[in-house]
């Protein structure tokens, strides 16, 4: 099986030849290639080259045509500050804290504004280079996250309470723009597009807030991506998402990214028909040893591999400064679990 076939088999609860593994190597690909992150995030060809190099280095089953969560808000008029060794942050939001500016968002031109053309170029290059052997994965921000990126998290949450209709209007715009961006990525060659929505986390908003405000829009976005050709739908909310996992089926998610703080046994019971990927601590890729990663990865593979709907991965993005030997250790555990288990036992006792 190819890496792409393995992942697709797991998502369909079929039996892959070995446990698929998704290493969320985003900006770390720039670190690995010795490239300035600021250049990586603004140059589609460079991003594709770095992702291909990371794919070769780690034998990845999937690569990411993904820049950062600032892409969409920048295209909609926010001004970003690029930083030497980190992801850009919003310096000036497109919308004021009380919601002024919603009606002036440049929606008509946004799909071709800012860095989106570079992102699509990266997507196209990766698909051209990898064909259907390795999955090319795009990303869009979920409606709550894009809304927070357009006006600031604090202002967005206050707007939700103080002016719910205005907030709903903004959520609708964010969801529709996310759908458009995702469809453009699929058209450029992405096999699927991950919907990344950290602001939807139960650690940020209560579950009923998610159910009433985010869920209907997430469902619509995922349905739109599926119609546009996504080979499966993928929902990624960070933090302990257990309180909202029961909504994932209704949302139409085929794959659920589960962060390190989620109890996978409990999640497995809540999501009997939904594949999940997870959930090694991202920080462990910086702080732990390859033997420790091998031990944790082997434990996950042994425990959840028999479920079939399981993909080994970190709980979230692999940090920029991760140790490459730790990433290699995770992938080795999926490819050769018995050898990895022996290494972990020998090193850790």
């Amino acid at each position, binding site marked *: 099986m190819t890496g792409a076939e393995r992942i697709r088999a797991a998502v369909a609860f079929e039996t892959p030849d070995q446990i698929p593994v998704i290493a969320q190597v985003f900006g770390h690909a720039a670190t690995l290639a010795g490239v300035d992150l600021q250049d990586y995030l603004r140059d589609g060809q460079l991003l594709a080259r770095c992702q291909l190099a990371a794919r070769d280095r780690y034998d990845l089953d999937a690569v990411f045509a993904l820049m950062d969560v600032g892409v969409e808000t920048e295209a909609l008029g926010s001004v970003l500050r690029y930083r030497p*060794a980190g992801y850009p942050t919003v310096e000036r939001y497109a919308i004021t804290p009380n919601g002024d500016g919603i009606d002036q968002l440049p929606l008509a031109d946004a799909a071709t504004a800012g860095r989106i053309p570079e992102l699509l170029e990266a997507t196209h290059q990766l698909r051209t280079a990898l064909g259907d052997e390795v999955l090319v994965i795009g990303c869009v921000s979920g409606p709550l996250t894009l809304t927070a990126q357009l006006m600031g998290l604090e202002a967005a949450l*206050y707007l939700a309470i103080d002016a719910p209709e205005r907030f709903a209007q903004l959520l609708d715009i964010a969801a529709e723009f996310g759908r458009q961006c995702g469809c453009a990525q699929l058209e450029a060659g992405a096999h699927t597009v991950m919907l990344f929505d950290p602001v939807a986390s139960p650690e940020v*908003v209560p579950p009923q807030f998610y159910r009433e405000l985010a869920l209907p829009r997430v469902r619509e976005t995922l349905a739109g991506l599926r119609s546009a050709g996504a080979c499966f739908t993928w929902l990624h909310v960070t933090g302990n998402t257990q309180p909202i996992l029961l909504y994932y089926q209704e949302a139409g998610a085929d794959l659920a990214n589960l962060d390190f703080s989620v109890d996978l046994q409990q999640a497995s019971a809540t999501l009997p028909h939904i594949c999940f990927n997870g959930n090694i601590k991202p920080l*462990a890729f910086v702080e732990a040893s390859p033997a420790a990663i091998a031990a944790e990865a082997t434990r996950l593979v042994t425990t959840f591999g028999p479920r079939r709907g399981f993909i080994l991965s970190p709980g979230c993005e692999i940090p920029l400064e991760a140790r490459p030997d730790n990433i290699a250790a995770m992938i080795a555990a999926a490819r050769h679990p018995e050898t990895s288990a022996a290494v972990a036992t020998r090193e850790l006792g």
Partner: protein
Amino acid sequence: MTARLESLVQALLDGDQALATTELGRLRQDKVSPHRIVADGIEEAMARLDAKCTVEQFNLLEIMLCGRAITAVIKALYPPGQPPPHTRGTVVLASLEGDIHDLGKNIVKVVLTATGYYVVDCGKDCPLDRLIDTAKAHAALAVGVSGLITTVVPQVLKVRDRLAREGLGAISVLAGGAALKQASAEQLRVDFLAQTAFDGLGYLDQIEAGRR
């Protein structure tokens, strides 16, 4: 507790700042002292919120709304130039250099301020030197550092040693935030790793009680 104070507590817990401010006005008309309003109103609301917000059931929105209402009440109670009496010690907070996320830190600030601590906020993207200097200048009880991204970990590792080198080894170091919570207090070389703002408050209350 009087019915009116209970109404204030409920308004604060509901995050209804308009109603909370109205209830405050009524309490002042009834000649209830600011001290009692803080102790039996604001601190009572914080205690109930603390009990409600466990690690499993903690969400930013609820805390933010309550925090906003409390801030409005404190501002009305103590107008500019008449700062509230802080009796429980000084805490210096910062999001360290390289991290510009400060919402979590701001929540901690509200929680600590509302419970009688004096908070000196070094803001976000704060160099370590400034944090240490501020802790020294204010004879802080504790410093609190937050980190949403893993790249701040190397700086967190230096805080305790830097304080000790300045002769400030008695100052407690607290850490919190999404990235830092993946580690342990030992790994980060801090005294306490807070899972939530109230978790941090509980630890501070312990060390503050121990020093009395």
